[in-house]
């Protein structure tokens, strides 16, 4: 199997909120990286997971599927998943796949972190 062409760095921005900086390609091969980042971001009773997609370079339909399964896990843990940094192209993909019905999309990190903290 090809290696995942993606990195996800986790930053803790407050007691309750973590930000995951996504850089690279979100495909089926990113599953391990995504779930590791989620585990790291959730440590210590975090309630809001904010994903920064400014560095997203490529995404296929398997990548979107991974976000759906992540969302289910986040909901199960009674956390919230928020997103910012989507380009117009990726916003349109969230719209067509109707992920925007379930995941809050924000324009900036400040806005997303504020929403996650409330």
């Amino acid at each position: 199997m090809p290696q995942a062409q993606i990195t996800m760095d986790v930053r803790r921005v407050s007691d309750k909120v973590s930000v995951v900086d996504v850089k690279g390609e979100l495909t089926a091969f990113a599953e391990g990286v995504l779930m590791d980042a989620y585990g790291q971001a959730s440590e210590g009773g975090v309630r809001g997971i904010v994903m920064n997609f400014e560095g997203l370079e490529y995404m296929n339909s398997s990548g979107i599927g991974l976000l759906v399964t992540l969302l289910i896990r986040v909901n199960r843990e009674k956390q919230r998943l928020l997103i910012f940094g989507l380009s117009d192209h990726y916003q349109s993909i969230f719209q067509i796949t109707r992920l925007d019905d379930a995941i809050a999309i924000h324009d900036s990190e400040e806005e997303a972190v504020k929403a996650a903290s409330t």
Partner: protein
Amino acid sequence: MTEQTPQPEERKETTEPRDAVYWARYAETLKVSGVAEGATNINVEGRRAVGPLQGFGKMWQKTYRVRLGGVDASPAEVIQTWKENYKDFWPEGNVFYAPLAGITPGEVALISGSLPGGVKLSTGVMVLYADDESFTLMTPQGHPFSGWITFSSFEEDGATIAQAQVLMRANDPLYEVGLRMGGHKMEDEMWQKTLANLAVHFGARDPVETNLVCVDPKLQWRHYRNVWHNAGIRSALHMVTAPLRWRRDRAAR
């Protein structure tokens, strides 16, 4: 040698991510570009495409895969063949009316399936995504399930693998009951036969592996009203009212 400043359109093209050509463009509702002979477009035109988050039932991830052992075909060749012959790999009883433009992003295909009681289910799918090594179909409102099916091929341990992966919820309470009472089994058999047919096409005889995971056991009761679009009910009504339409058309002549 002179340097040229790219025109605005050219600049836009170069800044678009390379996956842009693989995705369907957003449209509020589905539009069928042509209805093939034998197909019925009563449950697709004007409907919205729906993903696994919009359905009612438990969420399942079902993976069916077959190893194309001893076959000298790259993943891209497998997917090209799958796209070109998609309808031929389906088992009997279900008909896929391929779009005229083929399996390309944004195209809508009509489907005629079989339901218990002799009812023909009229539904369809939209091509959500298609690249050289995978393609994904997304269902419309009223389809038995709400979600995506991704067909892909890749290399693993020196062999080419063909895979179909469904991420779905039953669209409404009636379909959820139907899936629990044998519908899941029928669906599993359909994709197992499809993959077996694909493998035979390439001359492989390996068994199809199935992996079923319940991703979310919760029912989404807020979506119970999806039953309004139920394509099974609408197809049955369309069938029983056929004589009335025939009489109306005859009187109009």
